[in-house]
């Protein structure tokens, strides 16, 4: 109990607004005076003379309490209270009744009024005590209502949750069991309550083994990361749970139990495991495809090499022989060459020479023999000479002849260079290209830089083109790293670095 005059409860508005609904002017004046004089400093009385006016005021201003006369021009008796209560059930109402109308007064109390006062007994102390009590009771009521609401809401959440939400006593026994728990464990509330929580779950270790859930462990696991646990449903099915726990404490901070929220993650874990597996498969497939590509490339090189050699050896040599024979015949044409044999032989010789040049070209295009006989550096120098001659793009080269990276890697690097040069010739509109093959920090680095139009690497489709894809794949296949730098108007620079095996 507290004294409203000296110690208002904290949080209460310091100014109370009291709505006085009273059509008799003398009564109204008296009541107002009693409130102002005996009540707390700063109380405000709003006086109206009809129910209609009361409703308008309630709608317009915050009102803390209503003093309601039951004989009004637009309403009499219980009706008055009901009209006001229809507008708001929150605002406490104290009714003012005539002499000895106890029966009506009691009806009003059961109809929702907080208190009643008989007009002829009115005095400051009674009035203000009635007001104070009415306010307190009304506040307690609405707090209780709010608490009940909250509890109902929480209960609904627990009821509706798909997760198992259970509470556990400090000695590890199940105290509550929601429908989610029933679904998760396949067991009804009646069978579950009172049994140890440890009967239902077993923590899963990093090694994949489960252990008994000790009480200590359970109590220690407060609001940390959810723990993975295994469980066996009543129907025998094994499930994986993610269990989060928190301590439950009373107002004096004593531990009264635990709440555990258990989420069935069996399906999620299975999907994750599947995903991991599929990723591993894809990675493996990737590696296999890469190895296959590499193998195909090697086969193509071998085949090209074979065709190149055959074309060169067989056709080239035969053509050479024909040429020599033509020459031999030419020297034996009689002085008097009436039939124009010499001229015809000269024509035939020229045809053979053109054919030889074509054959050589085909042979080199397939695979330059230098690659096999003299190695990568010589192959690159020759390729660059041909490129400069063919395209008119000036080549600056620094080709070091120092490191060997093996025939297969050399083939790949040579084909990468050809692809890069093709790009330069086709797209760059460059006037110069600089090519380097240098040994640096244990790596053989091929660099091709042009002064052409360039492109924006992140935006341009060029990087995802088959050409660049081929370059990247070839680089990867020989354990190299491929870096491409470019910007519009800034040319393009590609470098491929391949680790060189340190020999003895």
């Amino acid at each position, binding site marked *: 109990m507290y004294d409203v005059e000296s110690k208002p409860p904290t949080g209460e508005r310091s100014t109370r607004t009291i709505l006085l609904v009273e059509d008799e002017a003398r009564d109204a004046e008296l009541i107002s005076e009693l409130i102002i004089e005996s009540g707390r400093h700063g109380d405000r009385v709003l006086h109206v003379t009809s129910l209609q006016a009361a409703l308008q005021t309630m709608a317009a201003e915050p009102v803390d309490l209503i003093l309601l006369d039951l004989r009004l021009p637009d309403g009499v008796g219980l009706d008055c209270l009901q009209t006001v209560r229809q507008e708001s059930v929150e605002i406490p109402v104290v009714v003012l009744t005539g002499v000895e109308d106890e029966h009506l007064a009691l009806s009003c109390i059961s109809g929702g009024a907080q208190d009643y006062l008989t007009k002829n007994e009115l005095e400051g102390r009674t009035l203000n005590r009635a007001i104070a009590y009415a306010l307190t009771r009304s506040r307690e009521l609405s707090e209780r209502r709010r608490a009940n609401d909250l509890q109902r809401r929480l209960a609904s959440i627990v009821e509706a949750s798909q997760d198992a939400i259970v509470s556990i006593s400090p000695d590890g026994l199940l105290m509550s069991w929601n429908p989610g728990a029933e679904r998760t464990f396949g067991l009804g509330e009646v069978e579950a309550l009172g049994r140890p929580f440890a009967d239902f779950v077993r923590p899963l270790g990093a090694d994949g083994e489960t252990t008994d859930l000790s009480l200590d462990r359970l109590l220690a696991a407060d609001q940390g990361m959810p723990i993975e646990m295994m469980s066996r449903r009543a129907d025998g099915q094994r499930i994986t749970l993610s269990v989060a726990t928190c301590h439950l404490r009373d107002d004096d901070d004593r531990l009264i139990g635990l709440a555990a929220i258990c989420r069935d993650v069996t399906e999620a874990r299975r999907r994750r495991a599947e995903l991991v597996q599929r990723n591993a498969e894809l990675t493996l497939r990737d590696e296999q495809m890469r190895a296959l590509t590499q193998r195909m490339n090697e086969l193509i090189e071998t085949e090209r090499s074979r065709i190149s050699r055959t074309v*060169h*050896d067989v056709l*080239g*040599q*035969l*053509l*050479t*022989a024909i*040429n*020599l*024979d*033509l*020459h*031999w015949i030419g*020297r034996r044409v009689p002085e008097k060459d009436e039939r124009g044999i010499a001229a015809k032989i000269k024509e035939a*010789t020229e045809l*053979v*020479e053109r054919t*030889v*040049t074509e054959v*050589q*070209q085909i*042979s*080199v295009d397939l695979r*330059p*023999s*230098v690659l096999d*006989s*003299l190695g990568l550096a*010589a*192959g690159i*120098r*020759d390729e*660059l*000479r041909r490129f*400069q*001659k063919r395209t008119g793009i000036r*080549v*600056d*080269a*620094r*080709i070091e002849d120092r490191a060997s990276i093996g025939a297969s890697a050399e083939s790949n690097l040579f084909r990468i260079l050809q692809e890069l040069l093709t790009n330069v010739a086709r797209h760059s509109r460059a006037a110069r290209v600089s090519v380097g093959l240098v040994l640096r920090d244990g790596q053989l680095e091929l660099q091709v830089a042009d002064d052409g139009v360039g492109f924006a690497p992140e935006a341009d489709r060029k990087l995802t083109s088959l050409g660049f894809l081929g370059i990247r794949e070839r680089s990867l296949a020989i354990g190299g790293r491929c870096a491409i730098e470019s910007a519009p108007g800034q040319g393009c620079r590609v470098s491929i670095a391949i680790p060189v095996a340190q020999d003895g």
Partner: protein
Amino acid sequence: MRQVLIADDHEVTRRGIRDLLRDAHGELVMVEVGDTEAILEAMKDRAWDLLILDIAMPGPPIFDILPAIRELDPEVPILMITALPEVEIVLRVLRSGANGVIHKHRAANDLLAAISQVLIGKTYLHPETAAEIAESIDQEARPRPHELLSERESEIFRMIARGLSIKQIATELTLSDKTVSTYVSRIREKTGLASYVEMARYALQNGIVD
């Protein structure tokens, strides 16, 4: 010219060369071999006046065989004949000790001219080949005259640059004066450096001697 070794693994090519030589030079001793090891065998067999060697043949690479030939006979003129169009190969055989290179498709017209060049101690390259070599892709990478020299030629070039006389060089390398003179004229031919003074200056400038 009496004795010529023709090394080519293709009979038709050997026949063509044989016919050309016979037409121009009459009867000659012409021995034909078809792989690189047989060349070394033939070198031990007798002294040759001219070697006509294909570049791509069965057996160890010709680039390894040429220095071995030069060890056996530093003076014999070596004319390489090849169907391979690549410039790098031309450069490499010249560095390995050859005196001239002729491409097979030009053999019918130019073989005799090439032979007479190398026989008098000059280097033979077809003008087009020479132009291709000069097609520079890089100031540094362009073969400088001394890079065309074989190992033995380079050795003698350095000795000349250090101021040694032909006699001193001959003694040091246990070669005859005549052999050293042949080398020197070949060095002149390849580098285009006419006098000992020019050779010495070139060697200094290019860091060949300190």
